[in-house]
C-alpha cells in the first residue's frame, strides 16, 4: 500500500480568484486513516475530489506512492471512492454494482463472483446480492457503496461523508464498522466529514481545513490537547472549548477575580505582537467549581462568576450553559459538572481553570502561544 502526498496542491474554480484549496501540503502514510474535517465550504471535499481526479489541480502536485497522478484521469489512479449519496447504479443488482469495476478491469466472471461474495459476507449483504438498490434500506445501500470500494482492493480509499445520510444510531454503529474494516484491510484511507466527533473517533490523524487552508494535522489526542490556533480550538471538541479574551496581568492573565499563571514566553510573544490581551481557551471539563472557603479560593481569588442559564443532564455528567461578565461584555461559557451535583438555573457558580489545562492564543493572530 502506498503513501499519498499533496504537494502544494491548489484548486481555483473557473471564474473565481480565491482558491478553494490553497497550497495543501499533506503526507499520508501507508495504511493510515486520515480524516479531513472542517466546516462546509472549507475545501475538504474539493481536496478529496482532486485526489480522485474528479477535479482539476491548478497548481502543485498530488502523488500516490511515487507516481505523480496530478493530471491522470480517475480510471488510471487505482482508487475507490464512497460517495455521500452512495451513487449506486440503479439498473444493476447489488452484485453487479460491486463487481462493476472488476468487470471493467477484465477480471473473469468466476473470480468476480468470488470476490463479490467475499465482500458481501464481510458487509452482511449476502442475501441481498441479487436485489436492485431500490429494494434496499439506507444502511444497506451504504454498505453496498462500501462493498463496491473494497471489492476492488484499491491502493487508496476515498470516502466523502459516507455516513451523513444515515440516522444517528446507525451512524455510530457504521462508524465503528468502517474504522475496524479499514484497520483490517490496511488500505490507506482519506475520509471527509464535517462532523468532528467522526473525525476524532475514526482517524489515525485528523486534518482540519478552513477556507481552503490547512490549519493543523495531528493525532486526535494532540488535536484535542494542543490545538494550533483559535479555529481548531473552537472546532474540535463537543461542547466547544470556552474561549475568553482576558487582559494580561502581572505574572499571568486575569481570569475573573483570579490570576492564572501563563508562561513568560507566551506573555512576551503577545507583547511583541502589540497585544494587551490574550485569548484563553479552557475545555468545559477543565473548569473547576470554587466553593466558599475552598483551598483554590484562598489561593487566588474566587475565579469567574457564571450565572447558570441552562443545564443539560446527560446522566453521568451534566453541562452547564451560563453567562459570565468578562470585562465589559457578557460571555457564554460551558462548564461540565458531575451528574450527582447539578446546579439549578439562575445559580451563580465560581469557576477557575484547572492548572496546566489552559490554552493560550494570541488575540490578534489566533495562533497558539508557547506554554
Amino acid at each position, binding site marked *: 500500500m502506498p503513501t499519498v502526498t499533496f504537494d502544494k496542491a491548489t484548486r481555483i474554480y473557473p471564474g473565481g480568484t480565491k482558491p478553494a484549496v490553497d497550497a495543501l501540503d499533506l503526507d499520508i502514510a501507508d495504511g493510515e486513516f486520515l480524516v479531513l474535517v472542517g466546516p462546509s465550504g472549507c475545501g475538504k471535499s474539493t481536496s478529496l475530489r482532486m485526489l480522485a481526479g474528479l477535479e482539476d489541480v491548478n497548481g502543485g502536485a498530488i502523488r500516490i506512492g511515487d507516481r505523480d497522478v496530478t493530471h491522470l484521469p480517475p480510471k488510471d489512479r487505482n482508487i475507490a*471512492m464512497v460517495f455521500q*449519496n452512495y451513487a449506486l*447504479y440503479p439498473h444493476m443488482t447489488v452484485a453487479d454494482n460491486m463487481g462493476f469495476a472488476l468487470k471493467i478491469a477484465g477480471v473473469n466472471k468466476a473470480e468476480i463472483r468470488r470476490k463479490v461474495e467475499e465482500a458481501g459476507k464481510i458487509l452482511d449483504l449476502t442475501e441481498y446480492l441479487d436485489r436492485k438498490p*431500490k429494494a434496499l434500506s439506507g444502511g444497506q445501500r451504504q454498505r453496498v457503496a462500501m462493498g463496491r470500494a473494497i471489492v476492488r482492493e484499491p491502493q487508496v480509499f476515498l470516502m466523502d461523508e459516507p455516513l451523513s445520510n444515515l440516522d444517528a444510531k446507525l451512524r455510530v454503529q457504521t462508524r465503528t464498522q468502517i474504522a475496524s474494516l479499514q484497520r483490517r484491510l490496511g488500505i490507506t484511507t482519506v475520509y471527509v466529514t464535517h462532523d468532528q466527533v467522526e473525525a476524532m473517533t475514526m482517524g489515525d490523524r485528523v486534518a482540519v481545513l478552513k477556507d481552503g487552508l490547512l490549519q493543523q494535522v495531528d493525532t486526535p489526542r494532540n488535536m484535542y490537547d494542543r490545538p494550533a490556533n483559535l479555529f481548531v480550538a473552537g472546532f474540535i471538541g463537543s461542547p466547544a472549548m470556552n474561549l475568553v479574551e482576558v487582559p494580561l496581568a502581572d505574572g499571568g492573565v486575569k481570569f475573573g477575580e483570579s490570576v492564572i499563571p501563563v508562561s513568560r514566553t507566551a506573555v512576551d510573544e503577545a507583547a511583541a505582537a502589540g497585544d494587551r490581551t490574550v485569548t484563553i481557551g479552557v475545555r468545559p471539563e477543565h473548569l473547576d467549581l470554587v466553593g466558599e472557603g475552598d483551598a483554590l479560593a484562598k489561593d487566588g481569588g474566587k475565579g469567574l462568576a457564571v450565572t447558570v442559564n441552562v443545564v443539560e443532564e446527560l446522566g453521568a455528567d451534566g453541562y452547564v450553559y451560563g453567562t459570565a461578565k468578562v470585562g465589559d461584555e457578557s460571555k457564554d461559557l460551558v462548564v461540565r459538572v458531575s451528574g450527582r451535583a447539578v446546579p439549578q438555573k439562575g445559580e451563580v457558580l465560581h469557576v477557575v481553570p484547572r492548572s496546566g489545562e489552559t490554552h493560550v492564543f494570541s488575540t490578534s493572530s489566533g495562533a497558539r502561544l508557547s506554554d
Partner: protein
Amino acid sequence: MSEETVEASAAADAAPVVPAGGQAGAKAVRRAFSSPIASFLVILLTVLWTVPTLGLLATSLRPESDVAQTGWWTFFAHPGITLSNYHDVLFNGGFGVQNGLMPYLINSLAITVPATIFPLALASMAAYALAWVRFRGSDVIFFLIFALQVVPLQMALVPLLQLYSGGAHIGSATIFPSLGLGGTYAPVWISHTMFALPLAVFLLHNFIAQLPRDLIEAARVDGASHFRVFRSVVLPLATPALASFAIFQFLWVWNDLLVALTFAGGTPEVAPLTVRLAQLSGSFGDHWEILTAGAFISIIIPLAVFFGLQRYFVRGLLAGSVKG
C-alpha cells in the same frame, strides 16, 4: 397495473426535489381529471377521434360491391368480411397498376429502421459528450446544434440533392466527391439522419444532463472510460428518452413523403409505401376498398412500434441510486 403503481410511488419517493406545492397541484389536477364528467368527455372525444379510423378498417374489410353500394356503418348490421382487399393491394395490383404494395412495404421498413437507429445512436453519443465531457467550446457547439433547428428542411432539399448527385466543387477542386448513391436507400437515410439530429441531440442532452453527477463520477472512479460510462450507465438510464425519440423519429420517417420522393424517387426498388399510396389514390381513386386496405397497412406498423416501445417508458429508473 399494480406494478405501475409501485413504480410510480417509488418515483415519488425518489424525487424529494418536487416541492410540496407541486405535489398538491398535481393531486388537484388528477382529482379534476378523475371526475365522472371529465372522464365522460375524454371518452367521447376519444371515440369521435377514432371513428374515421374505424371506418377505414371497416371499409377495408368489405367486399368491393358492398363498398360501392352502402356506407361503412352498415357493415355492423350486415357484416361480410373479406381479406381479399389486403391480398389485392399487397400482391396483385391490377387496374392498370403492376405490382402490389409488398415491395414498397419492405422499402419503407428498409428506410425507416436505419433512419431511426442512425440519428438515435449519433445523437445519444453527441448528447453524452456535450453534457458530461468537459471541453472548450462545448456550449457553443450545443447552441449551434440547437440553432440548426430553425432551418426548414425544405431549404436543404435541392442543395443536398446536388451534393449527392454531383458532389461539391470550387472551380476544378473537388471538396466533396460525387458518391453515386442514386437509386439506393443511402441518400434517404443520410438525409433523415441529418434532419433529425438537431432535435435529437437537444432532447437527449437535456435528459442525459439530468442524470446525477455522482453516478457518472462513481463509474469513472470505478475505472470506466467515457465510452464505457456511456454504454453501461448512461444508455440504460436514458431508455425512456431514447424510446420516446425513437417513436417520434419512426413515425416521422414512416409517414414522410417529401424527403423520400426527393432522394429515392418513385421507382419500386427504393420508393417507400407513402410514395406508392400517393400514386394509388390517383390510379385507384374509385376503389375505396383497395385504398383503405393500403392505408390501414401503413397505420398498423407504427402502431406496433409504439406498443412495442411503450414498456420502456418506466418512471423511477433512478430510484435507489442517490439519496437526497
